[in-house]
């Protein structure tokens, strides 16, 4: 018989401070200290220490053998220019974003246009876990465990008309919540787009969560696109509008530098960014660089959509 003696430094699992209490310890202390000023204080603290609720999701076949990038790297090394151009700026500034309540305007060539509450657009009972590679156009990459639903399921809900050929997306642009908007780094609001077949592809995903919890603000809360065979900037964050169109929508980086960022922006080691090579990438957490795979390794699922296209012209 195994007799387990517990040392006095060993703590049982149920004595662990809950994450909610841990994250809110400052608020709890502050609550005691400034009970009088409580009318104003809680709302401020509530935003700064947003507690990410766990999400229930079912695993799917979209898994990788590689282990995910650590959560602190995914949530503290971000490109989200609405909160500043430094990699740490989004984690520092995104607490200003109010992810709930959230609504998405749906318009254009759809049979069910309107303003949808997030919960009406996304079925939170049908969430899936998906582990995807993320390849940034700046030649670094991560492995990210997302939680969300296929984009196709949302498109089905809003009923695209037969003339719809493209899906356009728009990010929130609110100066009060996004300090980065004060300078025109890009032509705000941030916009992105997909061809209809790309949007209906099995890989195209709308994420509402990360690492089993709600999306942190700096990762694009509460709703973002994830298209892992394209460079990261195509995966637009904090979506407030989805429009279906018959013409190719304008996209922010393409407007900013058409020679450098095309509409498709598929990951392609053979087509360099004019200012740097795309043949290799640094996986965050690794020292050297590894070879970049065409379509970020998802060629089996997506290459067919680009058959016959000159990818060096349609970059």
């Amino acid at each position, binding site marked *: 018989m195994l007799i387990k003696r517990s040392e006095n430094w060993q703590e049982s699992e149920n004595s662990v401070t809950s994450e909610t209490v841990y994250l809110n310890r400052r608020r709890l202390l502050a609550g005691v200290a400034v009970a009088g000023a409580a009318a104003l204080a809680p709302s401020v603290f509530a935003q700064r220490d947003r507690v990410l609720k766990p999400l229930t999701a079912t695993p799917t076949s979209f898994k990788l053998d590689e282990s995910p990038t650590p959560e602190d790297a995914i949530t503290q090394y971000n490109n989200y220019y609405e909160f500043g151009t430094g990699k740490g700026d989004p984690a520092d500034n995104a607490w200003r974003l109010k992810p709930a309540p959230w609504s998405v305007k749906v318009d254009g060539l759809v049979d069910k246009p309107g303003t949808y509450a997030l919960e009406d657009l996304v079925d939170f009972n049908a969430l899936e876990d998906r582990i995807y590679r993320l390849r940034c156009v700046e030649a*670094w990459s991560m492995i990210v465990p997302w939680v969300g639903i296929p984009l196709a399921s949302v498109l089905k809900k809003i009923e695209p008309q037969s003339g719809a050929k493209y899906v356009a997306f728009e990010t929130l642009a609110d100066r009060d919540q996004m300090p980065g908007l004060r300078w025109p*780094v890009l032509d705000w609001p941030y916009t992105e787009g997909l061809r209809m077949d790309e949007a209906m592809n099995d890989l195209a995903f709308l994420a509402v969560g990360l690492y089993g919890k709600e999306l942190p603000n700096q990762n694009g809360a509460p709703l973002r696109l994830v298209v892992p065979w394209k460079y990261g900037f195509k995966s637009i964050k904090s979506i407030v509008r989805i429009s279906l169109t018959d013409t190719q929508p304008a996209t922010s980086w393409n407007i*900013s*530098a058409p020679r450098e960022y095309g509409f498709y922006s598929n990951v392609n080691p053979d087509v*360099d960014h004019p*200012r740097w*090579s795309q043949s290799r990438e640094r996986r965050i957490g690794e020292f050297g*660089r590894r070879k970049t795979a065409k379509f970020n390794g998802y060629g089996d699922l997506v290459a067919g959509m680009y058959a016959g296209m000159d990818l060096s012209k349609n970059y």
Partner: protein
Amino acid sequence: MTSILPSISSKKLRRFGKPLVFALMLIPAAWLVWNWWLAFAYQPNGLGFNPQEESNRFTGDWTLRFLLLSLSITPLSKLIQSPKPLLFRRMIGLFAFFYVTLHITSYVWLDMLFDWAELWADVLKRIYITIGFTAFLMLIPLAITSTSGWVKRLGAKRWQRLHKLVYVIGLLGVIHFIMMRKGFQIEPLVYALILASLLAFRAHKYWLRQRRLAS
């Protein structure tokens, strides 16, 4: 500073001021080496999740800062009507060279891991790297001829003409910085604005001299 500096004797500035400024300008390099040391020992460090990117940017930033600082010494000396700031000019210029050497070391060694084929392709194909590399090459003769011996060997006039290259180097450095950023960003433009005002000071001086010569 503008009021204190002229009251300190040149001797004191040489003996205490220069070692102090020297030590101050070493701080960023010391921070960088210390944090790489920690990174290699798998310790928490200040270089973040992409240490190569951070170290390339950090050394580039400090190169530009010291370059602009060296270019502001002459205007400062005119402004406070004292030649004393000139005591520090060579040292600051050499520090700019020191930091650009760290910049290139960071890129060639820590980032590209001595992949010479890829590096050469970068220098030839990426215009912003071509521009940055050109600026580095131009800085080499200035660093070599920074000694008093070389001033004598070249003659003050020729030496001065050679060292006017620093204006071109400053320009290339700032262009390199602007081109490296994505989108329309404010930070490189601040550097550009400072450089523009420092160059405008020279242009104004030149124009005044031309007018004097003409009359």
